[in-house]
């Protein structure tokens, strides 16, 4: 067990953080908006934490206080929310593919800016970010509550009036607007909440991977998030969480299987080096056979009934 944790501690925490990031894509999607802007806020949050912990707070001996990490998360969340509001209000008048493209543009622009500012360290980025924990697995103290809080928030949201308004917008924006649901207000709300969450995850991640640079939070991250939500399940909040957990583990699971030594050489090598091929095929196949993802409300209902019957 100790050896398992020692090998997979980083992966386990990555899985949880990825699940939270997946929820940041799910939130606007509840309102029918495909926004891939989360990686931009994730990058911003990471830079804020990196800059604060390396330049603003003086380095001390021993571990970096967790309270400061929480402070960084709050600052990152607030600033991301502010940027989300500033970008969201004009951008969310767009629909469908146009919004997706606008958010792609947003992430690209942020990436170029990050490469060029002195304070972000350019291509090298910021390194030597202090650690609040002696052991990577202890990041679970930050990651798991973050995930649970976001899951709780989204689950409750689906039941409130605001949540129902979002779903109404997803089903038919025109009808919802005609019924008195303010589309822009609700869309911006979803977008900004998602930005806040992404910023907080970014702040934790900067400490987690010891360094932060313009290669974190790019279009590639968007592709991964889309995979989490669309393969995991786009109609219930459980879907993105499961998608995030499973798809983050998948490439490393393939690496592990390849290493077991029972497989013929060429297959092991393919599993190891062809991880990205498998990932891409999985996304393509997933969209064809599971258009609402693997975890659908129907599946959850059936599981609920099965559990009830089993009692």
């Amino acid at each position, binding site marked *: 067990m100790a050896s398992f944790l020692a090998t997979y501690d980083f992966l386990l925490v990555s899985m949880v953080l990825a699940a939270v990031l997946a929820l940041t894509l799910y939130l606007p999607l509840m309102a029918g908006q495909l926004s891939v802007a989360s990686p931009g806020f994730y990058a911003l949050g990471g830079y804020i934490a990196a800059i604060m912990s390396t330049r603003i707070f003086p380095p001390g001996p021993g571990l970096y206080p967790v309270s400061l990490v929480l402070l960084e998360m709050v600052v990152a969340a607030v600033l991301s929310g502010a940027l989300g509001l500033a970008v969201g209000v004009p951008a969310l008048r767009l629909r469908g*593919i146009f919004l997706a493209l606008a958010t792609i543009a947003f992430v690209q*622009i942020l990436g170029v800016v990050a490469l060029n500012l002195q304070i972000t360290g350019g291509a090298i980025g910021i390194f030597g970010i202090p650690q609040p924990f002696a052991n990577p697995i202890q990041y679970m103290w930050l990651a798991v509550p973050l995930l649970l809080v976001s899951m709780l928030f989204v689950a409750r949201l689906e039941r409130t009036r605001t949540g129902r308004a979002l779903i109404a917008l997803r089903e038919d924006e025109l009808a919802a607007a005609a019924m008195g649901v303010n589309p822009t207000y609700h869309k911006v709300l979803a977008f900004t909440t998602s930005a806040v969450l992404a910023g907080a995850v970014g702040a934790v991640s900067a400490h987690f991977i010891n360094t932060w640079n313009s290669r974190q939070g790019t279009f590639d991250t968007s592709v991964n998030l889309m995979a989490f939500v669309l393969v995991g399940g786009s109609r219930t909040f459980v879907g993105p969480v499961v998608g995030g957990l499973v798809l983050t583990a998948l490439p490393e699971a393939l690496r592990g299987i390849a290493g077991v030594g029972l497989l013929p050489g060429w297959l092991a090598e393919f599993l190891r080096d062809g991880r990205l091929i498998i990932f891409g095929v999985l996304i393509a196949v997933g969209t064809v056979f599971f258009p609402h993802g693997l975890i659908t409300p129907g599946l959850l209902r059936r599981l609920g009934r099965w559990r009830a019957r089993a009692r």
Partner: protein
Amino acid sequence: MNRTFLLQQVLNGLAIGSVYAIFALGYTLIFSVLRIINFTHGAIFTIGAYATYALTGSQFGINGLLAGATLPFALPFVLALLGGSVVAAVSGVIVERLAFRPLRARGADPLLTLVSSLGVAVALVNITQYLFGAEPYSYPDPLQGLPTAMNFGTAAAPVLVRTVQVVIFGVSMVMLVLLTYLMNATRTGKALRAVAEDMTTSSLLGIDTDRLVLLTFVISGFLGGVTGTLIGLSVGVAGPYFGIAFGLKGLAVIVLGGLGDVPGAVVGGLVIGLAEAFVPAQYIAYREAVPFALLFVVLLVRPQGLLGRAQVQKV
């Protein structure tokens, strides 16, 4: 800013712009008929470039499953170009059959197709790397006899443009003319436009929509292959990822020109090329942001692009 410098910037802009334009043509054609963004275009483009390389009888490097492989024959460049583009077209069709058709049959959201195309693109690029390795390749140069650059200025104040870029500009113009003719003056073109307007009604009216979608992918794939090879000629085939960078910028191009508008793709490409060329020297580090900043602004101000028609929301 003196006249020579200005002229140089304009020609640079047109040169790089025509590269974007020729990429965007295939991209926008698929959008115009199917209303989907086909991210696999960048991968098809790469496949075309690699296929042409193989057909010129050249050898693949030392990495990858097919290390050291070489075809038993060698074609002259232009034939290899056509052959490679055919391979690209076929790949496009295979992708369509396997990945997009099932989604279309179900009436799936275009966003789902966008994501699926991303997955396919990732898979294709990595398969290419798995087979052929990551090294750059160069074509045997068909333009060897010609001077490397053409002078559009005077001997005293030269304004040089690389010959291969002039060729690319020429090809993109020819492609534009051919495609516009196809779309507007032929029966097939009319059928394509009908399918673009409304697929269900067109099929009810007896148009073989399936065959036309196939044709769209064939043309788009062929264009992708030509583009990949020409760009490979200009800058070498820089490894399996060399098409991906165009994929994102291509989005900016087709939106700027008007999603689905064929001349729009060319106009969009040239405008973005010119915008990039005119970035002042001290801000060159921000050049990469220019197409995306333009994309963002256009989306906010005029989402239908320069040449598109305003989208009317149908109830």
